[in-house]
C-alpha cells in the first residue's frame, strides 16, 4: 500500500504514452492512396526523396478537409489546377488566354459561343475527357447553391455538338464575365459526378478526386497535403510541358513565423506566406528570392481600399470624402508599415496589370495625392470648421465628427496602417479612431452598413477591370451587402456603364477604355472608395532543390510563383512545368 502511488503515476504515464503514439500512427494511415492511378513505388520507405519533392506552404491554414473543386475557397491546396483543370489559362501579366482543356473557342454568332475541346485528354481513371464533361460542369450551375449559378441568368443553354464541340447559347452577351468563367471553372468528370445530389455536389468532400491534371491524390494528414505526379498527363504530349516535381507536399502552417523558420531551414521551396521582414532576407545572403529583387518585391495581387460608408454623415458629402483622400498618407504606410513590401496605389486603384485601362488624362485632372493643406482647404470650403477649438473640425451644422476606422483584430499590418490613417486624418483635422473588432463582428457590421470606415481587399486580380468596377459600383444596394459596394454608394449612371463594360468583347481594348475612362471620372470625382495600396502575391522561393523560379530577371519564367487557390489557372501550373531540379534527375 505504501509504495503504490509511486508506481501508479509512471505506469499511468507510460500507458498513456503508448496509447498516444499508437493512435498517432494508426489514425492518418486511413488516408492511403485512393487516387489509384499512380501508386508511388519510389516511396517504398514511406519517404519522399528530397530531390523529387516540392515543399510549399501559405495556402492551407487548416487540415485539408475537402477535394471539391466547386468549393473554391476551402478545397485542399491544388485541387483546382493540379487535379481539376480549366478550359483556358489566363496570364494576368501579359493579358493572354492560353487554350488548355479547350483547343479553341470563338463567338460563332451574335449570342453563340463554340468551344472546340482538345483531343486525347484523359481523366486519371483512364476515361476520355469529352464534351459531356463540359456540358455537365456548366449545367451543375443550375443548382442554386453552386457559386456560378448566376451565370444561368444570362446563359440559355449548353449543348454538345459532337464529342469535342460544345455550343453555348446566351440570352445576354456578358463577354467580360464569360471570359472569366472560361478560365475559372474547373471541369469535373460527368461519369463520376453524375447522379450526385445538390447536397453531395456542394457539400461533399469528394475524397477521391479524379481530374485531368498532372497530379493525383497521394495522402494527407492534419498538417500536410501530398500530391503525386500522374503518368500520361495530356499536356506532355500535346504541348511538350511536363511538371518536374514527383511529389508536392503542401504544408499547413499555423503561423507565418513557422513558415519563415522552415524557409530558412530550406524545408520549404515555395512559401506563399506574408513575411514582413522579407526584404532583409532577400538582400542578405540567405538564399531566399522574391519575384522582384527590389521594392515592391512581389507581383501585385489585389488593392486595399479605404471604404467610406456613403449613407452616413459626413461621409455622404463628396467634399468630405475628398478631404479624407487627400489627408491619408499612403507613403507612410508603404514605407513605415510594410517596409516597401507593397506599392502605393494609383488614384484609380486599378492594379498595374490593368494599367492600359487607366485614362491618364482623367487621373491628371481629377486624381488626388497626399496633401494636408489641400485637405484642410477642402474641409474649410465645404463648411467644416473647428468650432470648439480642439483642433478637429465639426460639421457645417456644428455637430461633432468622430469616426471609427475598423480593421480586424490580429491583422497586424492593417492595424498599423489604420493607426497611420488615423494619425494623418488628425493632422488634417478629422477625428478618425482606429478600432479593432473581431473579424466576424466586423463582417457583420460591414455587411449591414453599420460602420464609418473600413479597409478591404476582397476583390482580386482577374482578366477584366469589369470585376473591379462591379465591386465598386454594383447596384441595387441590398439590406446586406455581402461582397460588393460595402460603402453603399448609389450611382445609376456608373452601374449602367459597368454593365455596358461587361458587354464589350475582351479584345476590344479601345471600346473598354472608352467606358473605363468615364467610370474613372465618376470614381475620382465622387470617391466612393479610396484606393490605398497594392498587396503583393506573397511568394518566397529557395533555390536549394528547385531552380528556374519566376522572377523579373531576364531569361526566367514570368508566371505567378504561387499555389494559392484560384491562381493555378493564372499560371501556377505553368510555373511547375518550368521548374528544374538543381541536381540529378
Amino acid at each position: 500500500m505504501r509504495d503504490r502511488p509511486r508506481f501508479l503515476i509512471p505506469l499511468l504515464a507510460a500507458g498513456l504514452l503508448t496509447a498516444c503514439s499508437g493512435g498517432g500512427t494508426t489514425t492518418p494511415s486511413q488516408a492511403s492512396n485512393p487516387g489509384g492511378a499512380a501508386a508511388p513505388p519510389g516511396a517504398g520507405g514511406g519517404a519522399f526523396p528530397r530531390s523529387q519533392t516540392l515543399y510549399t506552404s501559405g495556402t492551407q491554414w487548416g487540415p485539408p478537409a475537402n477535394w471539391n473543386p466547386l468549393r473554391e475557397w476551402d478545397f485542399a491546396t491544388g485541387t483546382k489546377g493540379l487535379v481539376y483543370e480549366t478550359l483556358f489559362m489566363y496570364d494576368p501579366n501579359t493579358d493572354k488566354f492560353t487554350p488548355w482543356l479547350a483547343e479553341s473557342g470563338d463567338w460563332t454568332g451574335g449570342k453563340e459561343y463554340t468551344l472546340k475541346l482538345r483531343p486525347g485528354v484523359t481523366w486519371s481513371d483512364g476515361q476520355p475527357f469529352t464534351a459531356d464533361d463540359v456540358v455537365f460542369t456548366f449545367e451543375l450551375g443550375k443548382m442554386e447553391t453552386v457559386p456560378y449559378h448566376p451565370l444561368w441568368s444570362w446563359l440559355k443553354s449548353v449543348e454538345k455538338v459532337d464529342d469535342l464541340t460544345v455550343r453555348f447559347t446566351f440570352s445576354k452577351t456578358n463577354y467580360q464575365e464569360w471570359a472569366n468563367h472560361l478560365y475559372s471553372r474547373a471541369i469535373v468528370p460527368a461519369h463520376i459526378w453524375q447522379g450526385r445530389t445538390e447536397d453531395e455536389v456542394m457539400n461533399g468532400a469528394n475524397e477521391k478526386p479524379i481530374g485531368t491534371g498532372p497530379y493525383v491524390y497521394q495522402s494527407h494528414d492534419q498538417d500536410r497535403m501530398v500530391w503525386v505526379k500522374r503518368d500520361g498527363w495530356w499536356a506532355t504530349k500535346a504541348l511538350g510541358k511536363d511538371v518536374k516535381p514527383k511529389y508536392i507536399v503542401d504544408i499547413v502552417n499555423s503561423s507565418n513565423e513557422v513558415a519563415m523558420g522552415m524557409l530558412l531551414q530550406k524545408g520549404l521551396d515555395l512559401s506563399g506566406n506574408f513575411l514582413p521582414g522579407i526584404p532583409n532576407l532577400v538582400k542578405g545572403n540567405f538564399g531566399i528570392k522574391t519575384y522582384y529583387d527590389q521594392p515592391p518585391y512581389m507581383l501585385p495581387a489585389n488593392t486595399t481600399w479605404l471604404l467610406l460608408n456613403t449613407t452616413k454623415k459626413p461621409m455622404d458629402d463628396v467634399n468630405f470624402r475628398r478631404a479624407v483622400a487627400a489627408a491619408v498618407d499612403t507613403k507612410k504606410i508603404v514605407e513605415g508599415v510594410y517596409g516597401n513590401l507593397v506599392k502605393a496605389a494609383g488614384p484609380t486603384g486599378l492594379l498595374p496589370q490593368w494599367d492600359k485601362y487607366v485614362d491618364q488624362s482623367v487621373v491628371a485632372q481629377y486624381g488626388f495625392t497626399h496633401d494636408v493643406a489641400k485637405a484642410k482647404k477642402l474641409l474649410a470650403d465645404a463648411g467644416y470648421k473647428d468650432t470648439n477649438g480642439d483642433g478637429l473640425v465639426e460639421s457645417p451644422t456644428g455637430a461633432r465628427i468622430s469616426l471609427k476606422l475598423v480593421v480586424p483584430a490580429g491583422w497586424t499590418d492593417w492595424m498599423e496602417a489604420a493607426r497611420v490613417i488615423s494619425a494623418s486624418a488628425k493632422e488634417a483635422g478629422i477625428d478618425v479612431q482606429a478600432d479593432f473588432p473581431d473579424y466576424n463582428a466586423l463582417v457583420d457590421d460591414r455587411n449591414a452598413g453599420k460602420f464609418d470606415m473600413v479597409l478591404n481587399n476582397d476583390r482580386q486580380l482577374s482578366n477584366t477591370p469589369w470585376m473591379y468596377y462591379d465591386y465598386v459600383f454594383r447596384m441595387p444596394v441590398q439590406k446586406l451587402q455581402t461582397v460588393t459596394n460595402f460603402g453603399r454608394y448609389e450611382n445609376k449612371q456608373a452601374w449602367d456603364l459597368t454593365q455596358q463594360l461587361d458587354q464589350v468583347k475582351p479584345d476590344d481594348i479601345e471600346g473598354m477604355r472608352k467606358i473605363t475612362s468615364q467610370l474613372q471620372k465618376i470614381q475620382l470625382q465622387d470617391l466612393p472608395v479610396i484606393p490605398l495600396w497594392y498587396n503583393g502575391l506573397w511568394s518566397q522561393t529557395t533555390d536549394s532543390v528547385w531552380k528556374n523560379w519566376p522572377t523579373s530577371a531576364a531569361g526566367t519564367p514570368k508566371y505567378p510563383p504561387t499555389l494559392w487557390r484560384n491562381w493555378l489557372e493564372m499560371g501556377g501550373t505553368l510555373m511547375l512545368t518550368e521548374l528544374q531540379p538543381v541536381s540529378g534527375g
Partner: protein
Amino acid sequence: MRRYFGRKLLVYGLTFFVAVTVNWLIPRFMPGDPVQSMLSRANVSQPAAVEAMRLHYTSMFGFDQPLWRQYLNFWGALLRGDLGISIWLFPTPVTDVIVRAVPYTLGLLVPAILLSWVAGNRFGAFAARRRWLDNSVLPLGYVLTATPYMWLAILLAWALGIVAGIFPVAGAYSFAMRPELSWAFAGSLLQHWFLPFASLFLVAFGGWAIGMRNMIIYELEADYVTYLRSLGAPGRLVRRYAFRNAILPQITGLALQLGVLVAGALVTEIVFSYPGLGHLILQAVQNQDFFLLQGTFLFIVLGVLVANFVVDVAYVLVDPRTRAGMGGAA
C-alpha cells in the same frame, strides 16, 4: 466510501451539464454569424450566389431555428455521439477532427506534465537538503517558472531549430514521411515531439521543484519530525514521512495543472506548429466554428473532470486521513 464517491459523481455530473451548457452558449453570444464569415472568406463574386448559399448553410447548420430548439437539438445529437460538422473544416465531422488531433495533444501534455511533476518533486525534495544546490539551482528554477512560456518556446525553436538545426520547427513527423510502423518513423515522431515537450517540461519543472522544496523545508520543521528525530528514527525514514506529507498539496496542484492542460498546449502547438487540439481551438474561435468549439470544449471539460476524479481517488490512496474521515460511511 460509496457515499463519498456517489456525492462526487453527482457533483461531476452537475458540473458537466453546466459546463456543456455554457460551452453551447458562449459562441452564440459572440458577435458575428459563422455562415456569413465563412462566405466572406469564400470570396464569391456574385451577391445573388452568396445569398443562396447563405440560406442553404444557415438551414443546414440549423441556425434558422429558435435558440431553445437549437439547444435541444444539441443535447439530442450529443447523446447520440454526434458533435456536428465543422464549419471551418467543412465537411469533416467534428468527431473526426478531434480524434485526429487528440493523440498529439495528449502525447505531448501527459508526459510533460507527469514527468515534470515527478522529476520536479524529486528534485525539489533533494534540493531542500543541499544548501549549495538550494542556492545555485533553485534560482534557475525561479527563472524558468517566471519566464513567459511563449518566449521560452520561441527561444528554443530559434536556437535548437533554426540556428543549430538539430530539431525541426514544424509538424508532428517529417514532411518527407508517411505514417508507418518503422524505427525511422518513430524516430521522426520523437524528434518532432522533443522540442515542444522540452519547453513544456522545463517551465513546469521549475514550478514543481520550488513548491516541493518549500514544502519539505516546512515539513522538516514540523513537530512530528522533531518527535521522530528525538525517538532516534533514521534520517531516511524522517525524510520519507516529510515527503509524503509534502506531496499532498502538490497533488492538488497537479489536478489544477491538468485543468489548464489544453490552454498550455495552445501556445506550444502554435509556436511549434504541432497538430493538436490547441491550434484547433484558436482556429475554431477565429472562424466562429460553433461545432468545433463545442466539441473541443466538451473534450476539455471531460478531461478536467476525469483528471479531477483520478486525483480524488489518488488522494484516498495517498492520504490515510481521507480514508479515516469517511471510515464510518464505508
